[in-house]
């Protein structure tokens, strides 16, 4: 009674559409609950349980998104804002939420065998993984630059720790430090970019910024454009666009392999979600200003990624550089600044996530105890030693090279189509050139696996979780390579929107 009188009733809590936040809540809640349960009762729980629970949580988040997809693709209801105009639920965010949630499932299944082999098992990895995914989902749904930044930090902080998770391996520690220092550096750029944008438009809310830029002609747009530059630095860092890519090979090589699988898929998806929503959707009216710089970034990313991949001898570094060149293909879709371009990025993210997780799953088992055997030579003769493993890797490599009848072909096809539709002929040619250069590196690994002999006959143990991941990923890659339509349709329907609460 007494307190009620004193407490100011001026704080109005916003309406929250709780049902729309199911994926966020499942991921974050799952992480916290897991931490509690394992700290209290961890010693009595079986060692395989954390990864199963994590996979279930990830799957739960994906399933929890289905009703949202129904809602936002329903013509009568459509996209909506879940929390005070700053968390937007639209086809775009739901699509990426599902992608990120499923990468969690895969990363958890891969981690099971890996962590036990490296004697690192425990719930911490999984808790961090879930928290990081919650951050990624927040980024995908953010309709406010502050929320976006919050999501990015939740995502990144967890991944910094995960990069250094292999505490007996110096490279892992080194990777974590490098990633952390450079990540903090780039976050500063992003935050400063947000500040400048706020200064130029008077809001951090993307809906308001978009409306403001549509209705107002800025007499002096210097502040806004400087904001663009700094935002691009921050987001370019997350998606490893050249020249902000330098951390990628070192961190990929050093980090535990299941973590790399998540970095190259889930983290990248979150980064592109932000890039698309901020630039293509919010700053769409200023496309003429930012398109040339994205053009330059795309060309640099495509070429540098492919060329540097060719001169590597370590498969993890090769895949790191190849992931940079794949990011270049997705930047083409961003540069197109069109509905088809956005759909091409979403399709690319969905299928590339599967490919890269499958690839790192193979690397993770071949690298052996200590996670060190990752040179091309270590893959020699794999075709004779573990034919099915080598077959799966071949499928993923062929798909990454863009061979028809795999999902990778359509991914590159739609990216290049987006460039051609936007009349960016030169960009399309550079993309094809990059694909040709990169094909060499995939062939090199395949030649090593199938045609070169090896006197190494140490047994390669493939844990059950990895078998499941490899089987699902290979079936996905071939199946949707032959029947691409379902995923293409989903990517086309997943349109981004900026709407306020009613």
């Amino acid at each position, binding site marked *: 009674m007494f307190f009620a009188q004193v407490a100011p009733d001026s704080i109005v809590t916003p309406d929250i559409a709780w049902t729309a936040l199911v994926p966020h809540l499942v991921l974050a809640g799952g992480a916290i609950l897991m931490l509690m349960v394992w700290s209290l009762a961890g010693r009595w729980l079986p060692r395989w349980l954390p990864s199963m629970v994590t996979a279930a949580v990830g799957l739960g988040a994906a399933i929890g998104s289905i009703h949202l997809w129904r809602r936002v693709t329903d013509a009568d209801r459509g996209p909506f804002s879940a929390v005070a105009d700053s968390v937007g639920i639209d086809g775009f965010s739901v699509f990426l939420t599902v992608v990120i949630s499923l990468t969690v499932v895969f990363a958890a299944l891969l981690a099971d065998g890996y962590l036990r082999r490296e004697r690192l098992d425990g719930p911490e990895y999984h808790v961090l993984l879930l928290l990081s995914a919650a951050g990624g989902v927040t980024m995908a749904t953010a309709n406010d630059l502050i929320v976006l930044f919050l999501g990015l930090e939740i995502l990144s902080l967890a991944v910094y720790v995960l990069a250094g998770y292999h505490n007996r391996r110096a490279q892992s520690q080194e990777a974590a*430090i*490098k990633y952390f*220092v*450079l990540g903090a*550096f*780039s976050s500063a*750029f992003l935050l400063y970019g947000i500040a400048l944008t706020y200064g130029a438009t008077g809001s951090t809310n993307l809906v308001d910024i978009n409306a403001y830029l549509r209705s107002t002609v*800025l*007499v*002096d*747009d*210097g502040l806004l*454009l*400087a904001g*663009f*530059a*700094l935002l*691009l*630095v921050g987001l*370019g*860092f997350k998606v490893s666009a050249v*020249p*902000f890519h*330098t*951390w990628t*090979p*070192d961190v990929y090589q050093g980090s535990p392999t299941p973590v790399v699988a998540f970095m190259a898929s889930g983290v990248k998806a979150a980064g592109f979600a932000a890039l698309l929503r901020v630039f293509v959707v919010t700053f769409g009216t200023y496309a003429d*200003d930012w398109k*040339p*710089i994205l053009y330059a970034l795309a060309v640099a990313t495509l070429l*540098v990624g492919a*060329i*540097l991949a*060719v*001169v590597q001898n370590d498969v993890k570094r090769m895949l790191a550089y190849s992931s940079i060149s794949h990011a270049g293909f997705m930047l083409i879709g961003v540069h197109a600044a069109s509905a*088809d371009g956005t759909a091409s990025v979403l399709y690319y993210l969905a299928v590339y996530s599967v490919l890269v997780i499958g690839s790192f799953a193979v690397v993770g088992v071949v690298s052996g105890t200590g996670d060190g055997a990752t040179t091309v030579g270590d893959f020699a003769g794999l075709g004779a030693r573990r034919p099915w493993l080598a077959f799966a890797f071949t499928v993923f490599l062929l798909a990454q090279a863009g061979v028809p009848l795999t999902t990778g072909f*359509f991914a590159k*096809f*739609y990216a290049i*189509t987006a460039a051609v*539709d936007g009349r960016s002929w030169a960009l399309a040619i550079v993309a094809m050139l990059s694909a040709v*250069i990169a094909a060499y590196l995939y062939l090199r690994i395949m030649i090593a696996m199938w045609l070169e002999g090896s006197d190494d006959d140490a047994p390669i143990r493939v844990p059950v979780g990895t078998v499941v991941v490899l089987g699902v990923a290979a079936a996905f890659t071939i199946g949707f390579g032959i*029947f*691409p*339509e379902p995923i*293409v349709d989903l990517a086309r329907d997943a349109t981004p929107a900026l709407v306020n609460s009613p």
Partner: protein
Amino acid sequence: MEELVWLIPALPLLGFVLLVLGGRRLGEPGAGYLATTMVAGSFIATVLVFVGLLGKDAEERLFEQTLFEWIPAGDFSVDVGFLADPLSITMALFITGISSLIHLYAIAYMHGDKDFSKFFVYMNLFVFSMLMLVLGDNLLITFLGWEGVGTCSYLLISFWFTDEANATAGKKAFVTNRVGDWGFMVATLLAFFTFGSINYGEMFSGADGMATSTATAITLLLLVGAAGKSAQFPLYLWLPDAMAGPTPVSALIHAATMVTGGVYLLTRVNPIIAEASSVAPDVIAWIGLFTALFAASIAVAQADIKKVLAYSTVSQLGFMFVAVGSGVYVAAIFHMVTHAFFKALLFLGAGSVIHGMDDEQDMEYYGGLRKFMPITAATMVVGWLAIAGVPPFSGFWSKDEILLGAYENNVVAWVLLLIAAILTAFYMSRLIFLTFFGERRWSDGDPEAHAAADEPVADDGARSFHPHEPSPLMWVPLVVLAGLALLGGLLNLPFTGDTKILEQWLEPSLFGNEHIATSGAAGKWTLAIMSIVAAVIGVIGAAAVYIRRRVDKSVVEQPILQDAWMVDDTVTSFMGGPGRKSFELVSWFDRTVIDGAVNGTAAVVRHGGLVLRRLQTGFVRSYAVGVGGGAVALLVYFLFRTTF
């Protein structure tokens, strides 16, 4: 029931997948029975679709089934879909039917081969591809099937690839078919630019009133593709060499099915040919005519039994091209079907003889085999009378239709084709006489029997043969095919409109482009009698040379014919002489300029990579400089774009 059309190619595909996964474990003969069951199932599915189509009115017998959109990309959208219409179902019926018989035969023929299951893997893949070729509802699916059958053909030609000649023959087929594929691909692109679609239905509805020049170009380009696949002059060189493969392969791929792909394709696009200038069908007819004569003349002098049949196939395909060029598509399809019956029969019969004669293919070693292999001999005689054009065997009816069509198109063409028909009757009689009749020219190691033979022609003394009838698995298909070769003519008897079953049935697929015979009854009878006379002349001529020995066979078997008009040798020596010089020039250009450019690019990439790699120092401070430098560059760029 036409919804089942997807099942037709799906079953052989399933067989292929199952055999790839578990063929080795199934081993012999399980793998063979599995493959046969799948193809037989596919035949049953075809029959069901056929019955479904029969239940509809003639003009509604076009059923399109789209499985899924394969390449969804704005304007350029390609579906994976099937078109079940009278034409495609006719093809599918005889393809699956004959394939089932040949699969059954092959179980016995390939007995003991170390790659038994692999053989059936390829065979099922072939049947799947062939069905995609004929059932596809657009040019791209047809092309996929086209490439698929080609691939299986090379794989099966060089199936015993430890043999140098077989591997070379496989390569030859590969190279020749590339030329044809080029024509097909360019035609597909041209069709897409013209119609905005490569779906048959959409193409044909747009064909009415299209530019004559475009229609001519598409027709001629498709002709290049068709000539490559159907072994027409000058792209026939690969087919005789393709006989290096196992005999069931020769029967299935190189006689009954794949090689008719070209004729099918041209029949399929009849609305486009109808719009083309009259030059295009004339070119088709004259290429076919020349091939028919040319190949028949070579077949006369070959000693290898399979070579005779190979050149005979080339020649008979020439007959079908004449029919297409003369606008009598029904006759082309009719002859394709009857030819599939009797040529498959003849090949399988030849395989049975080769099998019984210890893999000897030279007819100089045969003679008098009818007593030792009565079933093979009787069935092959049926095949012989059918191909020679003796009534009432099937070949007579279909060949007569083609001759009638040729006559109404151009009398000179008819005369030349009649000569080809005489040659056909002659070389086939020669094959039968040399193999089954006359004296034995082989030894069974028994000195008495040896002495009884009249002057053995080619007895090398060291080898002895024990000819015998093969197992029922091999002769049952022969008997079935013999029945079909005998009765196949019932499909399209020319007496009244009602007996022309095939003509009525195919009508919806031909869009009124079929040439309707204008000759009166008297004219038709005269032509029919002429063609019977031609057959009789051929048979009597062969009897005079090879049974009665009135004329020495060296008069007929001229060296130039034995050498197939020296075409192969000329090509080879050209390649060795002036050709080689020009190729060396090309190769020099390729080495220095093209390779230089390619290697140069690779060197630049490598070098550039090594330079860039130096930037990757591993120090956080230098990475931070990279990020910071990038940020400065972006800022500078945007500052230049600002409006103040």
